[in-house]
């Protein structure tokens, strides 16, 4: 029995403790407070709300692991969405065919990746701080988007795109399927690929990684490129869900993605963090807002509770570390 627990522990890792406990607490508290909480309806609302925030969080995760940040995620997503919208409109708007959609999606992902490549190159070669570089990109993209859309919505897309935002396949929401596929892709990337390995190493010590013979510039450019591509996927899903593109869509998600990463045990200074705990943290955030909704709380209160939750987790983590240290500290 102990062996099984140990095995589960090593598979899940220490990062899992925080989000895992939070998950149990949220399910327990709302399960008791509201009889409707543990129902298909809750699952449905979480399943549809999760992917947008989730995909953007995946886009935020990689740069954070290198010790950086990508503040341009939401605007990259919407610029990519605009790219797709532009291709669709050029091909007949509401009458555009699947081929135009495919072409537009590929272009959107390329545009997202390009935004990442530019940031990555600047960060890798000038050693400028990622916050400043991505902030510049964020402001540039927002201005560009507002200029292109005159600050309004772009809409009028073919009907077959709709299911990508709110359809279901065998009872599972399509956006959730896209998100889960992306989560698994990120999990494999980080645990099994050379790029993932090097991402962690750079996050802990870039110079030592370079001395070890790793092309750190290439890794950083790739990390931001993948981050941008993931933004584009989020942008496509948002386009389908809202049936429109607006440069400000999802703007409030920006810092929530950072919160979700930290809640998922990602080290804010880089080098440590895993995808699955971040996924669980995202589920906890959504369950929390659905649960508060069910017990009749104002939906804006949910955001406030998210903030409190993160602060609480930080304090608990500090207490736990302190407790552990007093037992293992060795003197040299």
């Amino acid at each position, binding site marked *: 029995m102990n062996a099984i627990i140990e095995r589960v522990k090593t598979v899940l890792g220490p990062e899992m403790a925080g989000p895992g406990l939070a998950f149990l607490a949220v399910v327990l508290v709302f399960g008791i407070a509201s009889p409707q909480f543990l129902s298909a309806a809750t699952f449905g609302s979480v399943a549809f709300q999760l992917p947008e925030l989730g995909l953007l969080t995946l886009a935020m995760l990689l740069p954070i692991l290198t010790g950086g940040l990508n503040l341009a995620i939401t605007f990259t997503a919407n610029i990519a969405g605009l790219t797709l919208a532009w291709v669709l409109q050029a091909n007949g708007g509401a009458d555009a065919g699947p081929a135009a959609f495919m072409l537009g999606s590929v272009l959107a992902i390329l545009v997202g990746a390009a935004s990442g490549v530019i940031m990555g190159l600047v960060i890798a070669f000038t050693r400028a701080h990622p916050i400043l570089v991505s902030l510049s990109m964020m402001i540039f993209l927002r201005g560009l988007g507002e200029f292109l859309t005159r600050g309004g919505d772009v809409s009028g897309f073919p009907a077959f795109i709709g299911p990508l935002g709110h359809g279901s396949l065998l009872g599972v929401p399509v956006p959730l399927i896209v998100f889960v596929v992306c989560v698994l892709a990120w999990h494999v990337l980080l645990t099994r*690929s*050379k790029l993932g390995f090097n991402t962690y*190493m750079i996050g802990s010590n870039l110079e030592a990684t370079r001395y*070890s*013979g790793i092309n750190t510039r290439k890794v950083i450019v790739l990390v931001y490129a993948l981050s941008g591509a993931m933004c584009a996927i989020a942008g496509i899903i948002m386009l389908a869900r809202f049936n429109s593109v607006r440069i400000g869509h999802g703007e409030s998600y920006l810092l929530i993605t950072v919160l979700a990463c930290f809640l998922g045990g990602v080290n804010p200074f880089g*080098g*440590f963090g895993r995808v699955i705990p971040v996924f669980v943290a995202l589920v906890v955030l959504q369950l929390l807002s659905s649960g508060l909704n069910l017990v009749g709380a104002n939906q804006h209160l949910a955001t406030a509770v998210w903030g409190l939750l993160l602060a609480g987790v930080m304090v608990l983590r500090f207490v736990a570390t302190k407790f552990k240290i007093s037992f*293992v500290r060795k*003197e*040299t």
Partner: protein
Amino acid sequence: MRKGVFGFPPASRSNLTRFMGRHMHQLATAGGSEKPLLALRDINMTFGGVRALKNVSFDVRPGEVHCLAGENGCGKSTLIKIITGVYRPADGASIEYDGESYSHMSPVTAQDRGIQVIWQDLALFPEMSVAENIAFQTVLGRWPKLVDYNRMRQIAKDALARLGVTLDVDLPLKEYAIAQRQIVAIARALVGEAKLVFMDEPTASLTQSETDHLLDIVRGLSASGVAVVFVSHRLAEVLEISSRITVLRDGALVGVYPAAGMTQSRITELMTGKTFDQQVRAKSRDGQPVVLDVKGLSRPSQFEDVSLTVRRGETLGITGLLGAGRTELALTLFGMLKPASGTISLEGKPVHFSSNRDAIRAGVAYLSEDRLSLGLIQPQSIADNLVISSLDKVLSGGLLSEERKRSLVARWIGDLGVKIGLQQDAISTLSGGNQQRVAIAKWLATDPKLLILDAPTVGVDVGARAGIFDIVARLAESGLAIILISDEVPEVYFNADRVLHMAQGRIVGSYDPRTSSLADIEGAVYA
């Protein structure tokens, strides 16, 4: 070239002597059988089940220079932290200091009563001026809580004058080299009217002549009645400076010995509980093929016209003072710096590296002198640090295989005798010697032809150093060409087949340890 490293103008050393003379009356009884300034009895300290100190006693007499010796982890730092009030010893301890008894110290009491520590990292503020660094504690504590910069400058100048040193107190500290920063740290300790000063590895990053100046200053302090407890790995200077030596091993007191009549090898034996017998390992490798052939290599203002060869199975020692261009030369051979002129050939073929990746592919490995920030990625695991430079070997179908990684790491850990807990423990949890073994394994895993070891024993215990050099000898025997860089001449003398002396970017001497004496080479290097 090395004259005036502490900013001593020729006249200012007499300043120090005058200062010593003024306080000579206090020296008269130092080292005698008078009442000790500090007396610790029955000191016990436990950290989570590990007993860091076991019934340790420790005495310091007024004005003496007392050396605290022992390997890393023997309890030296714990003892210092108890005396300075950072830790509280287990019940039953008695601390007598300057006529009063305490069951434990507090940091405030310790400072008020004139106990000062100069930690190895100095705990200074590089961005702030010399004056601010020296005087901030004294000036900030006063009412009104406004900073009086003139007073600060005056306090700093006075403290430096007491040491016989002139520095520009308005310059930011970062403008000064490590040797001068050390002086600033000492000056700050003196501002607090110190009676007892602890110095933790004060000479670790100093050259010989800088060390000599520092030892002069320590003598001056002692002469003025300040007791100095000196912690150092360099046993030669320990013997030179101290009057008594307290040796700790595994948290227990081994004994207190007068420095007169001690030898370095005897201290090492006491510290480690083992005996060491160093012998010259040099052999001729003339029949072996040349692995590395360097001709006329130059990089402006770093090194000039360096030519050397290393043969299969040969260990080439390079020694010289810090700043002689040794590390720059090594980084050029490793492809991280580009030579301005000259050629590098590996096994007869000229090579041009555009990055260290090219060098690693060609079979060059470089163990950095800075293990903490460049050699290993401290927060990450032992396993990841070991495989980082040879990731392709642990791929399976294009993806990293945990299985392959674990077996590769297990093989090297076993081969080099690294003592570890779990492979996924952070490398920072290992001792210096074991970390260095992992760092060597990391490079051996890349199948190098040439291994450059830059200061491989920095931060490694005396007892573990022999183990590192045993590995080096074994690697050479297996055919690896090795360049061993060290500023400790005995290391290259005993462990290399040939020794090159580098000074100011040039190779100025070549020695064969079988025909030259250690004193010859040391004489040339430290001249």
